[in-house]
C-alpha cells in the first residue's frame, strides 16, 4: 500500500495563495487507508478551506486516482465544477497527483507528501514516477515530478544540457523541465517557475514511525511476532 501524509494546512494555503476557488480530489484506495484523502478527509478539507476564505466548487473521491482512464471517465459528470475552479487540490500520493495533472488542463497542487510506495505504484501505467521523498514538490512544477522527470532531480529549472528537448544524459528521454515548462504554459501558469525552490529536506525520505501506523501496517502486525510468541510461551 502507498503511504501518504497530509501536508500542514499552512503549506497547502501557501500553494493556494493566488487561487480563489478550488476543486478537491480524493482517492478511495491507499489515500483513504492512509487517512489522508478518503471521503472524510475531503469533507474536512472543504470546511478548512472555506474557513480560510476559499471557494470550494466541488469535490469527489475516485476509487483509484492513479488510473488515468478512471479519472477521465469518473470526472465527466463534474466538468462544470472543475472548470469553475482556479486550481485542483489532490489529496493522494505523488502518483495520483501526477495522474490528475496529466489528465486535466488545470493547475494541480499536492495536499499530501508520499512516504512510501510499498513496492507498488497503484494502477499507474504511465512514465511518471514518484520518488517517495516525503516532501512533495509537485506544486512548483505543474504536477510533473522534478526528481524523477529530470535526470539530475533539479528543483529550479533546466540545466544547460538539453538538446532539442531531450535529456543530455539519456537522449531518448524527454527533458523533464521541457515537459514542466510546456505543462505550466498550457495551464497559463509560467509565473510558478519564478519561485526559488530551497534545498530539499532529505531527512523526510525516512518515514516517521507514526506514519507507518496505517491499517495495512496494523494488519500485518496483528499476529504476535515469533520472538514475542516465544517470550509469551515461557
Amino acid at each position, binding site marked *: 500500500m502507498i503511504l501518504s501524509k497530509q501536508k500542514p494546512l499552512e503549506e497547502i494555503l501557501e500553494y493556494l495563495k493566488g487561487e480563489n476557488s478550488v476543486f478537491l480530489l480524493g482517492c478511495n484506495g491507499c489515500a483513504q487507508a492512509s487517512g489522508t484523502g478518503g471521503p472524510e478527509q475531503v469533507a474536512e478539507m472543504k470546511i478548512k478551506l472555506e474557513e480560510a476564505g476559499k471557494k470550494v466548487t466541488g469535490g469527489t473521491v475516485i476509487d483509484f486516482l492513479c488510473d488515468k482512464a478512471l479519472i477521465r471517465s469518473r470526472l465527466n459528470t463534474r466538468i462544470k465544477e472543475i472548470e469553475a475552479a482556479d486550481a485542483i487540490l489532490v489529496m493522494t500520493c505523488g502518483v495520483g497527483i501526477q495522474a490528475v495533472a496529466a489528465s486535466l488542463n488545470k493547475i494541480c497542487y499536492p495536499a499530501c507528501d508520499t512516504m512510501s510506495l510499498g513496492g507498488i505504484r497503484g494502477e499507474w501505467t504511465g512514465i511518471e514516477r514518484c520518488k517517495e521523498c516525503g516532501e512533495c514538490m509537485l506544486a512548483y512544477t505543474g504536477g510533473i515530478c522534478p526528481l524523477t522527470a529530470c*535526470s*539530475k*532531480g*533539479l*528543483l*529550479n*529549472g*533546466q*540545466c*544547460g*544540457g*538539453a*538538446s*532539442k*528537448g531531450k535529456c*543530455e*544524459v539519456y537522449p531518448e528521454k524527454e*527533458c523533464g*523541465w*521541457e515537459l514542466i*515548462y*510546456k505543462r505550466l*504554459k498550457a495551464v497559463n501558469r*509560467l509565473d510558478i*517557475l*519564478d519561485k*526559488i*525552490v*530551497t*534545498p530539499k529536506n*532529505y531527512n523526510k525520505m525516512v518515514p516517521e514511525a507514526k506514519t507507518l501506523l496505517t491499517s495495512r501496517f496494523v494488519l500485518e502486525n496483528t499476529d504476535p511476532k515469533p520472538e514475542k510468541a516465544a517470550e509469551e510461551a515461557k
Partner: protein
Amino acid sequence: MTLRSAIENKEFIITCEVGPVKGTNIEEIEESCEVLKGKVTAANITDQQSSAMRLGSLVTSHLAKERGIDPIYQVTCRDRNRIALQSDLLSASVLGIENVLALTGDLPSLGDHPHAKPVFDLDSVGLLGAIETLNSGFDMAGNELNGKTNFFPGAVVNPGADTEASYEMQIRKMEKKIRAGAKFIQTQAIYDVDLFDRFMKRVAGFGVPVLAGVIPLKSVGMARYMNKSVAGVFVPEDLIQKLKNSEDKTAMGIQIAADLIKGLKDLCQGVHIMAIGWEKKVPQIIEASGLNK
C-alpha cells in the same frame, strides 16, 4: 586587480580557463599561470569538467592564486552534499579565494567514472543561496560562523538553447540565479553573434555583467563534434569551411576566435575564453582581438 574590483570599476573583463591535471604533476598548471599572468582578469578553475576525475578545483585555485592569477573557483553539486560544499567553501575562504562559480555539474554517467553515485543534494540556485548564507555569517542550518566568508559568486547560462521551452527556462533560471546572489554570468560558447545580440537584448534589464563564452576552434573535427554532442553549441558551416580551407589551422583557429570576440565585445561586459588545451594561446587570441589588458 581582482575580478570583483574590475567589475565594480566597470572594466571590460577577460576570463579564461585553467583545467586541473589528471594526476599530481602540476607543471602544466604552473606554465599556464605563467603565460596567463597579467593577460586576463581572472581564470576559471574547472571542477572535474565533464565528470572526469582530476585534481581538485580548490587546490588548483590556490595554486593559481599563489602564481598571481585571480582564480574563479568552480564548484559543482555533482560530488558533494551540502556539508562538504559548505566546508570546501570555508576552506576556500581561508585560502583567500574570492570568486566562486556555482554550477549544478554534469551527471557522472557522462564522464570517466560512469558508475559513480551522483549527489545533487543542491542545485546551482541552492548553491548560490548557500554562498550568500555563508557570506552573511551563518551556515545553511542557521548556525553562526566564527568568521564569515566574503565570496563574489557567479553563475552560467546557455544562450543557445534550441527549443522555446529550453530558451525560456535558461532565461528564467538566469534571473533566479541573479536573485540568489550571482554577481556575474558566464555563457556557453557562442559562434553566432546575432543570436547573442538577441539574447543580450532579452536580458538587458538583469543588471549583472555577462561574459560571452568563446571556444577557439582547434580543428574541423572538434567543430563537428561540438555540433553533434555539445548542447546549445552551434558552429556555423561557413566557419568550419574557413578552417578546413586554411593552410595554417592554428593561425585560423586563433583568427576565428579573435573575430568572434571583436563581434561580441560591444554587446556585453566581457569575454570568457575556454581554450580547452590551448590555454597558452589565450594571450595570442586576446592580442589578435585587440583587447590587450
